[in-house]
């Protein structure tokens, strides 16, 4: 067995999380209120429902330099909007295949159902995710992959200008 190398020991991964407002974000607040400490590597972005998660958010986060992505939503059947989390699940499965094709390890994205009362689960999942990504090391995207992602994540601003150009 090789020694745990320096990168693994000192590498502090950057992880972006997308948490739905009603369950997982609330659970993360609860973890705070209950002073459950966990790894500082995860930055949470609040969306109303995990169904809002556009696969492009994930790709763009990788492109910007995230080493891992965590997605949190309500348990199946508990989505505040009935079925947004099922959409999130479908997109997640697709995303896994997509990032695999880009040469990104599947473990760099994780989807978890975390209910509003499960502050301890937020703590556990964030710690586990941080460890997993730490072990995988920094994400080093091929220049060509970056290009492809750039091409895919044309934001709607650019779209507007394209469409205006097209119509004029």
């Amino acid at each position, binding site marked *: 067995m090789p020694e745990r190398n320096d990168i693994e020991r000192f590498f502090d991964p*950057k992880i*972006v999380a997308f948490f739905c*407002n*009603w*369950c997982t*974000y*609330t659970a*993360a*607040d609860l*973890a*705070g*209120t209950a*002073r*459950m*400490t*966990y790894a*500082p590597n995860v*930055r*949470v*972005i*609040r*969306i*109303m*429902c995990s*169904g*809002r*998660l*556009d*696969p*492009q*958010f994930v790709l*763009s*986060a990788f492109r*910007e*330099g*995230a080493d891992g992505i965590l997605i949190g939503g309500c348990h199946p*059947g*508990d989505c*505040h*909007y*009935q*079925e*947004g989390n099922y*959409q999130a699940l479908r*997109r997640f499965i697709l995303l896994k295949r997509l990032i695999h094709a880009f040469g990104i390890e599947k473990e760099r994205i994780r989807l978890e159902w975390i*209910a*509003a*009362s*499960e502050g301890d689960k937020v*703590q556990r999942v964030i710690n586990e995710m941080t460890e997993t990504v730490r072990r995988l090391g920094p994400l080093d995207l091929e220049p060509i992959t970056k290009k492809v992602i750039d091409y895919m*994540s*044309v*934001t*709607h*601003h650019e*779209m*507007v200008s394209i*469409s*205006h150009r097209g*119509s004029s």
Partner: protein
Amino acid sequence: MSTVGTGSNDKCKIGVYVCHCGINISSKVDVSKTVRFAAKLPHVTVSREYKFMCADPGQDLIQQDIRDGRINRAVVASCSPLMHEPTFRNTMAEAGGNPFLFQMANIREHVSWVTLDNTAATEKAMSLISAAVERVVFHQPLMPNRVPVHPDVLVVGGGIAGIHAALTLADAGQKVYLVEREPSIGGHMAKFDKTFPTLDCSACILTPKMSAVRAHSNITLWSYSEVIGVDGFVGNFKVRVRRKPRYIIEERCVGCLDCIEACIYKSGKVPDEFNEGLVKRKPVYIPFPQATPLVAVIDAKTCIGIRTGKCKMTCIDACERDAIDLNQSEEINEIEVGAIILATGFKTFNAKRIYRYGYGKYSNIYTSLELERMVNAAGPTGGEITLKNGQKPKAVGIVHCVGSRDNKTNKYCSKVCCMYSLKLAHLIKERTGAEVYNFYIDMRTPGKGYEEFYDRLLEENVHFIRGRVAEITDWVMTPEEEGKLVIRAEDTLVGVVRRVPVDMVVLSVGLEPQPDAEDVGRLFNISCTREGWFLERHPKLAPVSTFTDGIFLAGACQGPKDIPDSVAQAGAAAAEALALIDRGYVVLEPNTAYVQDELCSGCKTCIDLCPYGAISFDDEKDTAKVNGALCKGCGTCVASCPSGSLQQYLFTDDQIFSEIKGVILYA
């Protein structure tokens, strides 16, 4: 307080305000460092810190900067937006700014409270602040959406909590629908003889309230009914209620009992639910003498007339008022209400789950609720406490914490069992003169007059043994134990294992959520705790609100509670509902989806995705179209639109992309 300004003259002028939250944030996060950091971010014109941003002087800082033209957008880095976003949006609006040109960075719940290392906490705070700054650049000025509130209220569950809430609202002049799924309202309280700690008669204080519900012109009481559908949102709920057929025409029945007398069954046939199965009832019955409404009900599962049609149907002939209709079918009523109060109560722990206590195996072992019926003068034994052989018990054991404070069943304390065990101990002693042994882990009697009640019991020579009961058995070791039930427990005060022979055992079963609590939660779109209690919005500051605006909680459905607490909470829930109705309108979060026509390709992907049918297709323009009144703002359609045409206010792609960028760039 320090101020750093960059003096940028850009159109977008952002003020960043970092809160110390006393020392809640500043003890972990180097606030001054974050302020200096923020000052250098693009478009930031003002960067300040303050001890309590949510306090008036904190808010004044923002308002002054707006009024002086220094800023037109703001970022507050403090607690969770779920806590104070409304506060600061209001701050913006009051100073003439647009409330939505604002973003919060959650550096308390998500940073200072959960991070061990100070340097890491400061870095995380900076990255969240930079994300908020990047994001707020893309914010659009929006108008909050005002919609009128329907003045009627729905109360679900007619226990003491639901009854009290309904009466409070009705007395205030509001129209209330009270939906109860059993044939009568009253809940658990209707089953008790006396209530702790005052020992006043339960029926004497409950019956007048039940009658008031029946008589109140503002209350529509639908018993034997259930809510089956809830649509809409705060102020404008559309609710569907199923009224189960009771095979009795409610308006005609006067509760004379003639039909019950006339039923072809001369005696009871089915376990009587109200009496905890201690006796049997007929297929046609009235649950208890004070039932409200006082209307008979026929149980379709056991009535031969309904099941086979082959019955003499003597009940029909006996009813002088022609109130019996064996062909009745269910009725679905649709109502509109502005607010909903859930008061669905609890169920008791199933004592059979603790096999060692022998419930269901040995006779003369009762649950506390069964004993409540037995000591009740209107109960199956007329208030007599007797053994199966008809004799009075000479020794009775009461086992506390059955299904409470136990890792194998429920971890939590059920809060009322110590007190009701004391009450039952007193009543048993009074009625039988028996020796009473209470086995407890800890005596929990906080409450007005509660500890005094415990003292009184000590003086009444009730025995108290501190220790969890290991087992209840009929396996005897000495001649004195012959024919008795033996309670084995370690007396932890003395440090010996005791075997106490008794004639009767009462198991003080804990309180559990209703078995269908999760389903009911789902129906009303509210969350449950892990155990299944309904989750309040904030355990201290919003104890009767839920995360779904307009839906409030009362009574034991939110957690174990005694009657005084249930009533207090019901009053609070009624007041919250009244406050909502009295204001007359609600402000909806303007986070709906919208289509940018020029980008829509007309693919129709989004249309079927919307769970609320808010998206339709405009055939003329060949584009999709969102109905803002139906959209609830989940954003699912937005994420699915292949052309980037659909966007969601407050969560546009640009806003989220910039947040991602900000969070990583400065991490």
